[in-house]
């Protein structure tokens, strides 16, 4: 071993570009020039797990989303959902839930358009082997200006949906514990309605473009980096495709269920994350299968593979066609991620259209008040006898308004609202200083 070590050669690709995140690849070759080890390192550590602790819970939707500026909405909403649980709101108002859903669809629409057109398409349109100098979205723009214009406008549309629902294109502020802080105004809705037909059309066009590439180069597309894996995603209780909420489902490469309908808050019961010395990213795996065999795919491919159906007619037709690629098993080709992603893009466009026609979005019930959950049920949480003891002390199990817990929530909620009001007042202040403009110099 030590002899080969000295002759070992290492190829480093750093940074990995045209991806969403901070990565690096190292490939070690043995003395014969064969690949001995290939690793993908996540090189970023920030410490959210720790520094988020001890903060106000209502800050979470705006802190946690700073994990990622490309998909901030997903993190914004995940954190907001956690705070819903904290304040005891199990069911949002229809307006709040649909606003959040629309926000998330704007997110998938823009991020999928970005991924496919801005980041991935240079490989397809200019070729895997194209000169790195031009193998980027600008290179594509110079060669296929119309396509890039379309891509820019699609991403812009998704961002406009986010702005209308979240208040801002990147890192919005709309999802708050128990609901949302704005609805969709009629002018906002009408503005978005104007272009949704075009977006649908372009989503279909993008998907057809990819399918053509796929079929024209079927050997490479279905063979390149294809490998069997497990797949994990959320699905609705009836197995429907869903992006905003649902339960966990995992399948193996052949499509056999590993687990299903695990409540999302119980994730830690079915998933673990292995720590390895060479990446700041942990390596998640399905607990029952162990670290060696339990790793799984996520994202568009897993979601499309895992669901039973999509409740969007065009996307559902595409999904059925897509699933045929797997010939009875799940689709395990890595390049099929693009395909699945564009099906989700189409799904998002269809669902955005549906929601733009939904009057609930103009509703005015934005935040629901917390409801006291009552004390934990005796049979689940506590040793026999303690309930009786607590009853003596003045606690009534399952009662809505009695006991320290309810008072606590009542105390906390108004304070939270006060804080929001304070924040808003601050925001309305004019900037302190805005001196005259001065020329910026290039030298």
């Amino acid at each position: 071993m030590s002899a080969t070590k000295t002759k070992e050669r290492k190829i480093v690709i750093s940074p990995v570009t045209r991806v969403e995140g901070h990565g690096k690849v190292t490939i070690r070759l043995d003395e014969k020039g064969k690949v001995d080890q290939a690793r993908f390192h996540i090189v970023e550590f920030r410490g959210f797990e720790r520094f988020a602790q001890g903060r106000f819970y209502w800050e979470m939707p705006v802190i946690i989303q700073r994990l990622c500026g490309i998909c901030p909405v997903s993190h914004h909403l995940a954190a907001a959902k956690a705070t819903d649980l904290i304040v005891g709101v199990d069911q949002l108002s229809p307006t709040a839930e649909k606003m959040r859903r629309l926000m998330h669809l704007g997110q998938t629409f823009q991020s999928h358009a970005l991924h496919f057109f801005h980041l991935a398409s240079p490989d397809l349109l200019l070729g895997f082997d194209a000169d790195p100098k031009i193998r980027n979205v600008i290179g594509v723009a110079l060669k296929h200006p119309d396509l890039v214009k379309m891509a820019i406008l699609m991403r812009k549309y998704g961002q406009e949906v986010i702005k209308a629902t979240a208040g801002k294109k990147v890192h919005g502020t709309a999802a708050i514990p128990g609901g949302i802080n704005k609805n969709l105004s009629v002018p906002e809705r009408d503005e978005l309605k104007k272009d949704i037909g075009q977006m649908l059309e372009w989503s279909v066009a993008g998907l057809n473009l990819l399918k053509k590439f796929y079929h024209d180069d079927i050997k490479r597309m279905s063979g390149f980096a294809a490998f069997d894996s497990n797949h994990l995603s959320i699905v609705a209780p009836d197995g429907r495709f869903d992006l905003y909420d649902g339960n966990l489902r995992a399948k193996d490469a052949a499509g056999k269920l590993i687990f299903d309908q695990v409540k999302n808050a119980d994730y830690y019961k079915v998933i673990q994350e292995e720590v390895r010395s060479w990446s700041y990213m942990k390596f998640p795996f399905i607990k029952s299968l162990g670290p060696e065999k339990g790793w799984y795919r996520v994202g568009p491919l897993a979601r499309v593979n895992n669901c039973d159906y999509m409740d969007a007619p065009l996307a559902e037709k595409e999904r059925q066609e897509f699933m045929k690629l797997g010939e009875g098993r799940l689709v395990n080709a890595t390049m099929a991620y693009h395909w699945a992603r564009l099906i989700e893009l189409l799904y998002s466009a269809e669902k955005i259209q549906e929601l733009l026609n939904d009057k609930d979005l103009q509703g005015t019930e934005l935040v629901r008040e917390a409801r006291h959950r009552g004390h934990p049920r005796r049979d689940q949480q506590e040793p026999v006898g303690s309930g009786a003891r607590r009853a003596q002390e003045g606690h009534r199990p399952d009662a809505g308004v009695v006991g320290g817990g309810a008072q606590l929530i009542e105390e906390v909620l108004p304070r939270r609202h006060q804080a929001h009001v304070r924040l808003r007042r601050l925001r309305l202040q004019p900037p302190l200083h805005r001196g005259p403009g001065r020329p910026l110099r290039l030298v």
Partner: protein
Amino acid sequence: MGKVKVATTAMTSCFGCHMSILDIDERLLDLIELVEFDKSPIDDIKEFTGPVDVGIIEGGVSNDENLEVIRSFRKHCKILISIGECAIEGGIPAMRNAVPLKECLEEAYLKGPTVYNPKGRIPDDPDIPMLMNKVYPVHEVVKVDYFMPGCPPPADQIWAVLTALLTGKPIELPYEFIKKD
């Protein structure tokens, strides 16, 4: 005069500022008429190909690799712009400055509810960057010429700065361009 060369990077950050650059939307097509991108996460140029006019930095400095990147940006770029709170004051990642680094690492790699780490080892391979105790704003490490505030700065602000730079005209920044949330 040839096209103005621009390089960009994202260090300890979330890529949101780069997204805001893309949010200039159709103006991107005008931009690429005027500028040529060098090293940037949106293309495949990994090393500087030569001197560059403008370097746009997203994110603070939190590890030895960031340090290397930022020094090489200073060396290659005539002017450097810090974009966003992370670059200007460390931003959200600098929240870890209030906690010992050790605690952050322990929470992520030893104590978290899903952690599987039989050897109790915290990532330490030479192939991943070494973390600094604190997250630093860019201008505490190298000289920075201009700052674009916001988290992220609105696309209109970015466009105003870029056009002011490219045309040499005085910059106009109405309130909406620097308004935050």
